[in-house]
């Protein structure tokens, strides 16, 4: 059972059967009263709830230093940035890779895409953000755009060589096999 199967569980017939004689019940684990869960969960749940409530209380009482609209924008915006931008882009790239790349090349390409993607995200504020105090030569002393390009180029060069070798090996194994 992968996470994908689990996500489909509301339509899993085995699930409905778990709560006898209740045609409307769909959750197999009986969310409120399941006994299948380890006791130590409470060591995380209760302090976790307390910490979360403390944080919420702190934000609500922070007054003008943290306007809640601005905070909420960044809070929701951060989740949506992932859910509506990063995840769909990565899913789309994965679809392209599965469609156009030979199987043995997919591993190297995924590694290269992950490394160059995450480095780009980390470097982006240094490249696009506020250049800071122009009188301070110690802040952002490098050429970040150029450095990022160089690193990403090196990563893809290695991944390209690795892919070619992997594809070549797979083909010769197929011929010999």
């Amino acid at each position: 059972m992968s996470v994908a199967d689990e996500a489909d569980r509301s339509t899993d017939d085995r699930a409905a059967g778990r709560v006898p004689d209740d045609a409307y019940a769909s959750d197999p684990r009986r969310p409120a009263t399941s006994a299948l869960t380890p006791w130590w969960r409470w060591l995380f749940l209760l302090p976790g709830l307390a910490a979360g409530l403390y944080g919420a209380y702190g934000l609500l009482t922070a007054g003008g230093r943290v306007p809640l609209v601005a905070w909420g924008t960044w809070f929701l915006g951060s989740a949506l940035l992932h859910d509506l931008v990063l995840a769909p882009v990565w899913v789309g790239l994965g679809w392209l890779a599965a469609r156009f790349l030979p199987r043995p090349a997919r591993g190297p390409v995924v590694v290269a895409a992950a490394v160059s993607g995450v480095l780009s995200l980390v470097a982006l504020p240094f490249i696009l953000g506020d250049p800071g105090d122009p009188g301070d030569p110690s802040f952002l002393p490098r050429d970040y755009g150029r450095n990022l390009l160089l690193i990403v180029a090196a990563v893809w060069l290695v991944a390209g060589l690795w892919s070619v070798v992997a594809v070549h090996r797979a083909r010769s194994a197929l011929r010999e096999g």
Partner: protein
Amino acid sequence: MTSALDRALGARLPAPPEQLRRGPFRRGAFPSPLHSERRAARVGVWLGAAFAICFVTGLISHLVQHPPGWFSWPASPVWLYRFTQGTHVAVGLAAIPLLLVKLWTVYPKLFEWPPAGSPSRLVSRLSILVLVGAGVMQLLTGLINISQWYPFGFFFTVAHYWTGWIAIGAVAVHVGAKAPQIRRGLARRGSPAATAGLSAPQAAELTAVDADAERNPVSRRAFVLATGAGVGAVALTTWGQTVTPLSQVSLLAPRIPGVGPQGVPVNQTAEGAGVTETAVDPAYRLVVDGPERLELTLADLAGFDQYTERLPITCVEGWSSDGEWTGPRLRDVLAAAGIPAGTAVTVESLQTGGLYRVSTVAAPHAASPRTLLALQLSGAPLDLDHGYPARLIAPNRPGVMQTKWITRIAPGTGGIGA
């Protein structure tokens, strides 16, 4: 807790029309067996550890700058704050790839159909929104903050602190809520614990998925390599701002130890602080408001016994850089003004505004022989940007509390560190 509650939470909610089920919402849109409990749990351990480390080190930094009565931060070891705050930022940066990979493992749940099949799923997804919102926000705003870009509309430090509580709370609740999955995911593959709580057919499916992960075109090995390489690449390219031996490798670090006026980076310049005239004014005096009030010129300060200490400037933004500072000991100057040893004092800067104009030197630092009123850096008079004519430099203290262009010292507490 009744089965009636179970029925209510587990009741089926109407699904959106099937025609809308497209793209990643399609059945079978995520065929990779790496979208598994096992991968999610195992990346989750690393990510959870990263959040725990960031929370503890962040809490330390908060307590140092806003100490409650029960808290005391020592003056030694010299490197302690450098270690905790460097770790805070370094681990936070490394958590960016971990968080993205962790979220990738559960993409099928992000794109599940129907989006909320039951009230219990709706509640669960809203709680996940809190987890993801707080987690991504902490890493994103933290990254933007170390690039000294402040587009937030709120005070970063205050929001980062309180959101940190929400984030660590949400992580803990998530661990508790997903305890059965985590227990299975962390158990050795093939052991009975790896399928605990599952029916026989479900257990067989789960075992098959984990077996497939070994043979998938993008195999478990490639997944682990991609995650490790992502974390390693971020570490190598940024940690050099804290870990000096990496400084030449860290091509994307926002700071380089040793690069700046007199070989030490600067966060606030004299220009930015508006002290370019007052700092070089011959009328400059350092007022020490003790029982015996002193008004010291730069020459008077140079007349005290001079000491040289090698101490780091450690920025809350994570970078740090060693300097050789020379000047009188703070405690000698306090003694000359009749202030008893071990008294907490406030130091004030010439700068006219800013959150960090005034800082408190707590008793351990005020008494430390290593705390100097530095007049020189690397054997030359302080650069204006480093706080000429005199600055505070104390061991084991955040850079924002190493007050520059210092003009007044008085017993008592105030400003940052009070």
